[in-house]
């Protein structure tokens, strides 16, 4: 593993998260939220573009952000499972706003800690991307926190649904903090952040938000991951099918 692989994995997290979040635009509970979700998805997409462009620039021959986003197969994507899953808890509710809020809380809290640490990376490009992104995900975390409070401490129904959404997302949290995929020499050289070192500050934040929202930390087992090795959930293929089909139908075309 090298800097390219590291940047690519972080870029894949942001790209797939943005792709999924785009599904909420024009489907949120109120118009303000359509604007907010659009904004968050755009920020994540921007982070993905910077990270993929950087990863591609380290290859020989160089690949562009679009080469990497549109012309890799599922096994070559290294994002965590958390970001690729669909938005439902129950089959009859394929798009549940509670799941969006739960995932956004988890993802933005993790990304805040990650980008904050990465902004002092010895790799100047990663440091610059992270320094810009940390301000964005800080807003995402605020936004998610406000909704967790409203839903957790709102009505009885919203409390139940918010807790169910957290319980559904929680098995996919552990994979974010798995160290196995990060080359220790990258950490030693100060390029990469060891994911497990982000867990304590992450937990502190989450425990505080959940307590204020009258919710509890889910007591569920971690799911078997695999995203960092390119082993995904069954849903990932559909995400890529949607994202890539037009581009792949026209090899060599520019858009």
């Amino acid at each position: 593993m090298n800097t390219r692989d590291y940047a690519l994995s972080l870029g894949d997290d942001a790209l797939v998260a943005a792709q999924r979040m785009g599904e909420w635009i024009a489907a949120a509970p109120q118009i303000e939220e359509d604007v907010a979700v659009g904004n968050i998805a755009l920020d994540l997409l921007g982070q993905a573009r910077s990270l993929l462009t950087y990863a591609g620039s380290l290859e020989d021959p160089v690949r562009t952000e679009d080469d990497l986003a549109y012309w890799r197969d599922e096994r070559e994507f290294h994002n965590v499972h958390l970001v690729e899953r669909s938005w439902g808890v129950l089959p009859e509710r394929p798009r549940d706003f509670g799941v969006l809020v739960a995932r956004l809380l988890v993802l933005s809290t993790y990304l805040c800690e990650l980008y904050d640490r990465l902004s002092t990376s010895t790799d100047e490009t990663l440091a610059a991307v992270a320094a810009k992104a940390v301000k964005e995900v800080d807003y995402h975390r605020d936004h998610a926190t406000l909704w967790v409070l409203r839903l957790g401490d709102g009505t009885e129904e919203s409390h139940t649904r918010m807790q169910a959404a957290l319980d559904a997302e929680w098995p996919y949290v552990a994979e974010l903090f798995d160290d196995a995929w990060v080359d220790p020499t990258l950490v030693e050289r100060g390029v990469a952040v060891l994911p497990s070192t982000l867990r304590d500050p992450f937990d502190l934040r989450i425990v505080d938000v959940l307590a204020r929202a009258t919710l509890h930390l889910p007591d569920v087992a971690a799911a078997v991951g695999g995203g960092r090795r390119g082993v995904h959930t069954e849903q990932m293929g559909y995400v890529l099918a949607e994202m890539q089909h037009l581009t792949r139908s026209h090899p060599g075309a520019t858009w």
Partner: protein
Amino acid sequence: MVRVYGNDFAPQDAEPARPAAPAEIEPGLEDFWRIVGADGRIEPRDAMPEDYRRSLVRQIAQHAHSEIIGMQPEGNWIGRAPSLRRKAILMAKVQDEAGHGLYLYAAAETLGVDRADLLDLLHSGRQKYSSIFNYPTLTWADIGAIGWLVDGAAIVNQVPLCRCSYGPYARAMIRVCKEESFHQRQGFEALNTLSHGTPEQRAMAQDAVDRWWWPSLMMFGPHDAESTHSEKSMAWGVKRFSNDDLRQRFVDMTVPQSEALGLTLPDPDLRWNEERGHYDFGEIDFTELFEVIKGNGPCNKQRMAHRRGAHEDGAWAREAATAYAEKQAARKEGSAA
């Protein structure tokens, strides 16, 4: 000068309609007619005729609804945008439309109505949105064609509204028009890339223009003689130009742009008329427009079902937000006591 794109124009040759007070002015409305006659702005607290208020609520709400429903046909391609740059542009555009909806609902609220009630009227079918959004977006080129033609037509309709007599609406429209103008350029640029791309991309672009051209012309509404709301709107200084004048302006502006794109517009009767100084164009099949307005367009049911579904699915979250705000207020009061 060929205007390749950009529609930040003030209509030049068609004379704007002058507001006209009735022969007998209702007591209490003297200031209203004086302000309107002097091309001033009516503000929310000013006295105004009840039908002026009602008509503006209808028009602004319909406009707001159009922005919100308009997110759907374009949102349809966010997941499939063929490059990350195009995906970012499209996401930002659809997000802008939600923002336009917000300004416009806020402008309508200054007239004493509530956004939630207006949304109920939309969801129950008692208020309309622009029929153009009942057409499907079938290929990526439709995103370019909507930007170029639909946003282009919207701008021609909306630029005069920046000077309309109701202040909050006029001010909202200034901001909306700036962003729409940007969208129109992006649409033109997307379509230009396709029309100068591979033969398949070029065919995709031509097909999209073939399908969106006539519906775009219908966005200006029926011919002046059949337009039901026009006369009063003009007297009130809300509407400045007739449907047919605006449509002509759109055609005149768009034909040279189509030439720059290297695409043809699907009208065999389209030609420059030296004498008139305008392009002549073919007869519009309004029977189709009226069918779409009645609810029989390709996507009417789908758009409404999606809109209602999002609203209903989100009810629990909105209720939670209200309940939480009430609890917070009560806690604040409790701690203050």
